């Protein structure tokens, strides 16, 4: 009997024949924390009395959620994390370097690896064929100590992609459509495994967007195969040596299979206050938007900046709609500057923020006012998510966000593409 991607990676890392439903102890390759979960990890790690981080593990600290820090409390958390990184000699990415998941994709995660992060969107690295899983601060503290942790090997839901995403329709529309279909708990405790005849038409940027939101269906991991597209991406990032091909067995056993013809999808939006509350962008015309937010670990990559700039170039934002742009990493920001995307967006009336998470979780830099609507390219629209329980958050693609910025209401981006 063949194996799914999840079973293959967890077998490899646990040294046993891991099958769905089994509980295994597996070696972790990469573990990381960020600035809102890291301080508790440090406290718990110190409580274990460990002298240092397990030698077999690559470990990293990211200062990205409050970057730069808006207040003394978070600044003091940053001091703690910088000192932890110095003491343990682990990697640290400081203010301005970018969002953890983007840097993990650009520089750290390798296909076939086991990645654990104290952040729910750690699943993003599944876009590169890593089994990447979000956990809490204490779980990660113990991973830092022992270099391993326990996993229940998840059942997998196979999502078979046929047909190609075209024009203004992107990976974001694909994953919103899927979550609308299966629900916000449709994959709880399971892995979403993406494959099918057209998966090789999806860029790594799109795959990272799709994998990023696997957790919004409750999934433990969202996994793509590692193929020629993965190799090309790793070459672009200057780490060709990290490539290895990875595919599920043809006779792998899935809990179920969902087929999605990507060529038939339309721009999709999730309405407040759950991610599975989806509708087509064109059905929501007339809903006024006071803030558009383009960025985050979901959609802050160069392709996303390109899509937004393509629509905003030579146009002006609606006078009642603020446009906030936060590229996901320093590398993305530099490339977006070189390509002229940042200038296009600034001239259209956008505010450009340093790479980071800030407004997505309502921490700073773009907190909403009472009764305001925001169309964001992020992954969550929960009540209170963007800093105000009296505000309303809609999720869409960078193209939908940019088109809505021009008209001041939710807009199908195909009108401007």
């Amino acid at each position: 009997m063949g194996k799914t991607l999840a079973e293959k990676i967890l077998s490899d890392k646990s040294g046993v024949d891991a099958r769905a439903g089994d509980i295994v102890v597996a070696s972790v390759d990469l573990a990381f924390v960020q600035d809102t979960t890291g301080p508790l990890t440090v406290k718990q790690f110190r409580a274990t009395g460990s002298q240092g981080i397990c030698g077999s593990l690559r470990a990293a600290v990211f200062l990205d959620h409050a970057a730069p820090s808006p207040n003394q409390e978070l600044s003091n958390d940053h001091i703690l994390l910088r000192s932890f990184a110095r003491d343990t000699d682990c990697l640290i990415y400081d203010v301005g370097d970018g969002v953890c998941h983007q840097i993990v994709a650009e520089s750290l995660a390798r296909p076939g690896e086991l990645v654990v992060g104290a952040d729910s969107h750690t699943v993003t690295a599944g876009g590169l064929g890593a089994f990447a899983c979000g956990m809490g601060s204490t779980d990660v503290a113990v991973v830092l100590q022992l270099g391993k942790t326990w996993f229940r090997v998840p059942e997998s839901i196979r999502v078979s992609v046929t047909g190609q995403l075209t024009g203004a329709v992107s990976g974001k529309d694909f994953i919103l459509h899927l979550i609308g279909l299966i629900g916000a708990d449709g994959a709880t405790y399971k892995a979403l495994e993406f494959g099918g005849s057209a998966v090789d038409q999806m860029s790594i940027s799109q795959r990272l967007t799709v994998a990023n939101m696997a957790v919004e269906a409750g999934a433990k991991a969202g996994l793509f195969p590692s193929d020629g597209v993965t190799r090309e991406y790793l070459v672009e990032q200057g780490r060709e040596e990290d490539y290895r091909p990875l595919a599920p067995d043809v006779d792998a056993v899935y809990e179920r299979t969902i087929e999605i013809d990507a060529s038939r999808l339309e721009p999709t939006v999730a309405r407040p206050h759950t991610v599975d509350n989806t509708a087509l962008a064109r059905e929501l015309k007339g809903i006024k938007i006071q803030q558009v937010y383009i960025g985050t670990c979901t959609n802050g990559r160069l392709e996303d900046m390109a899509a937004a700039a393509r629509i905003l170039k030579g146009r002006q934002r609606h006078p009642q709609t603020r446009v906030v742009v936060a590229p996901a990493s320093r590398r993305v920001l530099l490339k977006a500057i070189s390509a002229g995307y940042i200038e296009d967006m600034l001239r259209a009336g956008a505010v450009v923020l340093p790479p980071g998470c800030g407004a997505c979780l309502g921490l700073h830099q773009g907190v909403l006012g009472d009764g305001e609507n925001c169309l964001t390219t992020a992954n969550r629209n929960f009540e209170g998510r963007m800093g105000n329980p009296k505000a309303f958050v809609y999720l869409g693609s960078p193209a939908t966000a940019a088109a809505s910025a021009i008209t001041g209401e939710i807009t199908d981006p195909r009108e401007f593409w």
Partner: protein
Amino acid sequence: METGRLLRGRAFKFGDSISTDHIIPGRYAYLRSNLPELAKHVLEGADPTFVSRVGEGDFVVAGSNFGLGSSREHAPLVIKMAGVSAIIAKSVARIFFRNAINLGLPVLICDTDGINDGDEVEVDLKAGTISNLTAGGQLTFSPLPDVMLAILEEGGLLPYIEKYGDFKL
């Protein structure tokens, strides 16, 4: 924790899809290194009166997908700090589930429709039963995997690792 002990308290009933932003939203991230202050906001997004009413031993009783969203362990932590002895829900999001057990806070999965807000409830962790002392009736909950039960028995992941030095499957 002593899993042979009976837990008894009042039910505080919540609906479906109570997210980590209802439990402890990101806008309070600056309080995460000041837990007593952070804990004053527990479940504020779902019921602002919860923190002033909840007492030692009480239960958070919810519908489906409780704790969805963030990996922030502060969510189960502030619920535990409020004195809650267990979370009872139809279903619980994965990361929240694991975090709660790692902190020694039991999570019991069963159909919660038969428990109303304010009901007096008794939980027998060992027998896997929940008795509704107000409305009558008994529910059974799904057993935890052995590894989680063992972690819970030691009072959380850190004491478990301190005792065994490793994961014992």
